[in-house]
């Protein structure tokens, strides 16, 4: 069972990696804003699977914090781009 | 080693911290008073520690919370810690007196930024310095180094001028690189030896060497190299000195004094702790020569650049770059496998004398330079004409401090350089001796450039930009006199530097 859960975590991580490549390449900064979101959700999935696989309940707390802070980082992303400094407009 | 004297070590470490917490929570008008009240107390504690080390002829040790290393953290004070603690409280106290009027909270007005920040940061530097001089644990020392950095960098840009901001940023980046490398080295040592306590590390490293393993563990070499380079960046040894001149010349005079006199010495102190304390009798010979070569380059390069400066504070800052170089002669001279114990001890004493006398002289010099700049409204060397007629005490302080830097008898700088020189000559290391003599000549050159116009006639129709109160000039003079009078210290008192020192000469790996 543990082996299967770890394998699933591995699969999720690989998917996150693929998504991350697409997101970080842009082209617009708005696309890149999705990176922490993706890692927030993907990371939570990986962590929850790992918590079950290794039987370490405290790992769930890490997933919880990750969820909270990924959301927080996204808000900051949006706000940071909401007041662009001159000459910092996104490329089309 | 006794736990009883340990409460003194805790007190030395915590007095400045208490000051920071008090200033942060109390009303603004108490700011300067709290800081100034703590300074004599700190000096008393430092003197008590020195007295204790002197009478017991051994180091003090305290295990915090009663938890012995490797699990807990030890504070230790040996002879050199005691000397550094006393020097620190003297210079910090002098800087406090010097800055008292400049950084006074205005009466019956809202709190001002600069005074509050100055006193908090000064206490922060003091806490960091004491933590470095007392620390017995590599990670605890990392935190102490960071305290120093975080207090020193904002002091550099206290005025908020653009050029000081750039200088502070450059300083911070160098310092952060230095601490990261230091931390990495400490991590490797923990991985290899399972402790961060310097004394335990020394024992475990020596035990390994005694097992006659011909090849030293690579971990030790890599760690030592990383930590040394990191600390050199913080000490501003050539060629990692680029950050120092703009940073030290841009800060307020009282802060420059502390930065140049003490802060760069803290990381030097740690290098000595590592090379002599952690590797007693095992100091790598080639590395020691390399450090001395960099020191020699620093002396020549720093002095020549000091000669070329057009501004007084920059000249004084480059002089620090040069004077730091002398300190590094301790490594080959005090750890020379071929040297007699007496010759090694001469070099060891000479190195610390250089450190203390430079601390006093440079603090005095930066204060004097600051006062001269205040009087004239600028610090261009070309416009110093006749300033000795306006602020004679200040110029005398500058000249006395300069005499010690040049190594003129009977100053402390003279004794320091004489000891180093005779150690170099007795060990047949002529090259270092020649560099030291050259450095003295060059120092004479750059100081002549300042003193010659300063003693000349006043330009006609000149009016001072500010009047300088006598007491501020007196502070600079007392420090400069201290640097000179150090040369009269009785020979017996030098023994203090040797207490708690691991035997260093004799057994060196090649």
């Amino acid at each position: 069972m543990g082996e299967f859960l770890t394998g699933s975590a591995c699969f999720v991580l690989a998917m996150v990696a693929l998504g991350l490549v697409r997101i970080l390449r842009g082209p617009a900064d708005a696309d890149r804003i999705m990176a922490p979101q993706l890692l927030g959700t993907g990371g939570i999935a990986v962590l929850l699977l790992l918590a079950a696989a290794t039987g370490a309940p405290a790992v769930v707390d890490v997933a919880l914090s990750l969820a909270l802070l990924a959301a927080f980082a996204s808000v900051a992303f949006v706000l940071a781009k909401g007041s662009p400094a001159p000459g910092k407009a996104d490329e089309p | 080693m006794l736990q009883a004297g340990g409460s003194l070590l805790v007190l030395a470490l915590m007095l400045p911290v208490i000051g920071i917490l008090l200033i942060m929570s109390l009303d603004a008008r108490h700011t300067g008073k709290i800081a100034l009240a703590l300074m004599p107390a700190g000096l008393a504690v430092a003197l008590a520690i020195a007295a204790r080390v002197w009478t017991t002829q051994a180091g003090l040790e305290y295990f915090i919370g009663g938890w012995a290393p490797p699990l807990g953290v030890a504070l230790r004070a040996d002879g050199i810690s005691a000397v550094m603690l006393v020097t620190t409280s003297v210079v910090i106290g002098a800087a406090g007196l010097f800055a008292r009027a400049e950084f006074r909270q205005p009466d019956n007005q809202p709190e001002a930024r600069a005074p509050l920040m100055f006193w908090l940061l000064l206490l922060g530097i003091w806490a960091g310095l004491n933590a470095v001089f007392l620390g017995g644990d590599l990670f605890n020392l990392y935190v102490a180094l960071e305290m120093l950095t975080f207090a020193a960098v904002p002091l550099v840009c206290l005025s908020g001028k653009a050029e000081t901001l750039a200088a502070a940023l450059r300083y911070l980046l160098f310092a952060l690189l230095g601490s990261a490398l230091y931390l990495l080295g400490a991590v490797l040592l923990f991985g290899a030896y399972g402790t961060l306590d310097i004394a335990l590390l020394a024992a475990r490293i020596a035990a390994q060497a005694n097992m006659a393993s011909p090849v030293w563990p690579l971990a030790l070499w890599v760690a030592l190299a990383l930590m040394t380079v990191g600390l050199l960046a913080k000490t501003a040894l050539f060629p990692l000195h680029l950050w120092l001149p703009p940073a030290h010349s841009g800060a307020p005079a009282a802060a420059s004094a502390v930065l140049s006199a003490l802060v760069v010495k803290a990381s030097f102190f740690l290098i000595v702790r590592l090379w002599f304390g952690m590797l007693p009798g095992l100091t790598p010979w080639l590395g020691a020569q390399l450090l001395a070569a960099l020191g020699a380059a620093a002396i020549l390069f720093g002095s020549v650049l000091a000669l070329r400066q057009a501004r007084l504070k920059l000249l004084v800052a480059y002089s620090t770059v040069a004077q730091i170089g002398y300190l590094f002669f301790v490594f080959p001279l005090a750890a020379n496998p071929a040297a007699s114990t007496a010759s090694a001890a001469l070099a060891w004493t000479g190195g610390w004398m250089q450190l203390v006398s430079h601390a006093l002289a440079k603090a005095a010099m930066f204060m004097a330079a600051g006062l001269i700049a205040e009087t004239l409204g600028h610090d261009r060397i070309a416009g110093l004409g006749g300033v000795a007629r306006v602020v004679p005490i200040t110029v005398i302080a500058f000249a006395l401090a300069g005499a010690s830097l040049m190594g003129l008898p009977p100053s402390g700088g003279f004794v320091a350089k004489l000891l180093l020189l005779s150690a170099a000559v007795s060990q047949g290391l002529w090259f270092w001796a020649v560099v030291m003599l050259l450095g003295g000549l060059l120092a004479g050159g750059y100081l002549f450039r300042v003193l010659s116009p300063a003693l000349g006639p006043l330009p006609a129709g000149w009016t001072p930009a500010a009047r300088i109160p006598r007491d501020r000039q007196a502070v600079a003079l007392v420090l400069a006199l201290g640097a000179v009078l150090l040369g009269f210290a009785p020979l017996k008192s030098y023994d203090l530097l040797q207490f708690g020192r691991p035997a260093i000469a004799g057994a060196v790996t090649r």
Partner: protein
Amino acid sequence: MSAALILDACLVLLVLAVAVWTIAARETFPAIAGFVSYGLLLAIVWVRLSSVDVALTEAAIGGGATGVLLLGAAARLTDRAGRRPAGIGLRIMAGALCLAITAALAFVILTLPDPAPTLAPQAVAGLPATGVGNPITAVLVAYRGIDTLLEKIVLLLAVIGVWCLTPDDSWGALPAPWGTARQDDAIVLLARLLAPVGVVVGVYIVWVGADDPGGAFQGGTILAAMWLLVMMAGLIAPLPATSRRLRRVLVAGPALFLAVAFAGFAMSGDFLSYPPAYAKWLIKLIEAALTLSIAAMVGVLVIGPAVRKR
């Protein structure tokens, strides 16, 4: 090869790839997006290294606070790197140096002594004297409490340093970290929904810290994030550097810690020692006070100083 090892290999490759992206990206903004991802990935690395406490810290700091700090700066700085990278010679030399250091480190790591030296048995043996069940909390508050105390002073000095960068004419003014960003209803809604949950999570993480992974720093940072979120949404105003209330909150934790440390002299003979009967109670009290101070410190550090009046 087990599934676990494949997972580890994937994770390592991903972390390294994101790090390369962060260094190599031309523009600053994508580099920082990469860095935030790096922080979140490291949290998973820490779980794999059986350091759940560190994972919590990394998630809070690497992914959260540091990321927000860098993003805020990147959005405001108009600087761009020059068209051609400076000094190809420097880059080659730096590359060679860094490669050498990496190689040396790798060699040292692969040849570390086996069995590895460890302090785990001693740390566990000391636990009864501290009354806590989480050995990491015991290290942080008891065995090596001095590090934690001085680290709080480091944080305080960083706060002072950040305040020191206030222009003189703005001393006492409110910091405005997010400029005059148009306040969306969505953010206000998020703040109203998320902040109470976050506060509960933060307090919970501090509370369990005595016996399970968690503690003052991790919890305090989550509280700080929630404080920042509510300020971002414009629901409450930031506090100025001159605020007495703010300063007392900043100082409360370290001051209480220091007071208990000195009381140790009288109560059990040593600075920073706890009488066994009250140890757990005292440590919880210190953690609670530290949490508040840490939340305030992290918040202030992220908000930054008041900027020049225009």
